[in-house]
């Protein structure tokens, strides 16, 4: 699971107010190289919650993203490459996503998050 997907996921448990971001518990991270696409990054920059991405990437062992970011930084090649790496190349292969409110764990196995709920959570 890429961090872009993490950035798009929230806790889906019924009645929970604080759903995002899910905390990450890391068992295994893998890195997979993908081609750099500047338009995609610029487009996604406006959709991504920066704080959540920066914190998630730190949890995954990548500490190069700044705490805050604004659109003027998209002019910097260095920034774009770091953003690209964090957003698309870091994969949570094994671990869990944790609901920020309830602590309920959504397992991630072989890179696939399991967001299925138990009957009493729907």
């Amino acid at each position: 699971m890429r961090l872009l997907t993490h950035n798009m996921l929230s806790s889906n448990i019924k009645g929970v107010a604080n759903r995002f971001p899910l905390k990450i518990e890391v068992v295994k991270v893998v890195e997979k190289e993908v081609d750099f696409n500047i338009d995609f990054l610029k487009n996604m920059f406006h959709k991504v919650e920066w704080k959540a991405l920066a914190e998630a990437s730190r949890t995954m062992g990548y500490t190069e993203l700044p705490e805050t970011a604004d659109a003027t930084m998209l002019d910097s090649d260095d920034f774009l490459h770091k953003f690209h790496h964090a957003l698309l190349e870091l994969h949570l292969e094994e671990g869990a996503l944790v609901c920020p409110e309830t602590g309920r764990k959504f397992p991630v196995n072989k890179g696939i998050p399991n967001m299925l709920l138990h009957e009493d959570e729907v």
Partner: protein
Amino acid sequence: MLSRTAKIPLVSSHPEVYEPCDDSFALVDALLADRTNLLQHHPSICMEIGCGSGYVITSLAVMLGHEGSIPYYIATDINPHAIRVTRETMDAHGVYAELVNTDITSGLEKRLAGSVDVLVVNPPYVPTPEEEVGCEGIVSAWAGGENGRSVIDRILPAADNLLSDRGWLYMVTLTANNPSEICLEMRNKGYASRIVLQRSTEEESLHIIKFWRDSDCQLELKNLNYWTKLVRS
């Protein structure tokens, strides 16, 4: 010639996962017929709900390709075996999608809202007793409850929520699902629609419908709301 769809021998399988069937082929043929438009559309995010064997999302990725990281492919299924089989099918074709094991789009609806440019769905559409809907195993791959609409009727609002302003939805329906009523419901949400492929097999008559947000529909809707209010007051 380069293949433009997933290759059947490379599609992985599992006893509890829906194998590519007439409906899957019809959907992929409809996408292939619209390929030029899809390429010109330059989608950023493409999604499938209910990916099963992965045949459809793999075919989409094969026919549109990747330009760097674009488009971003993401697929969901409620069946964990289907998700694993989809991963194998995609790996065998050298393509990649993010996969989420979830009910329809649960967990994605908040942050992915308004972002999906192309959404494809071959839902469980067969009319069955309501108890069969969503039960474990292969039955949930086709069981659609009354008129085959139980899951479809949950997918439509989810699709409306996820589609971007320029988003397109391609969905498989059966005559028994009452496609014209589905189109009318989507029209009330501001979507135009067109049957892009119709195919009758021995057992069923399938329609692949394409939906897109249409400003005329939205305008009409506003007018309609205005007139109803006026008449009521």
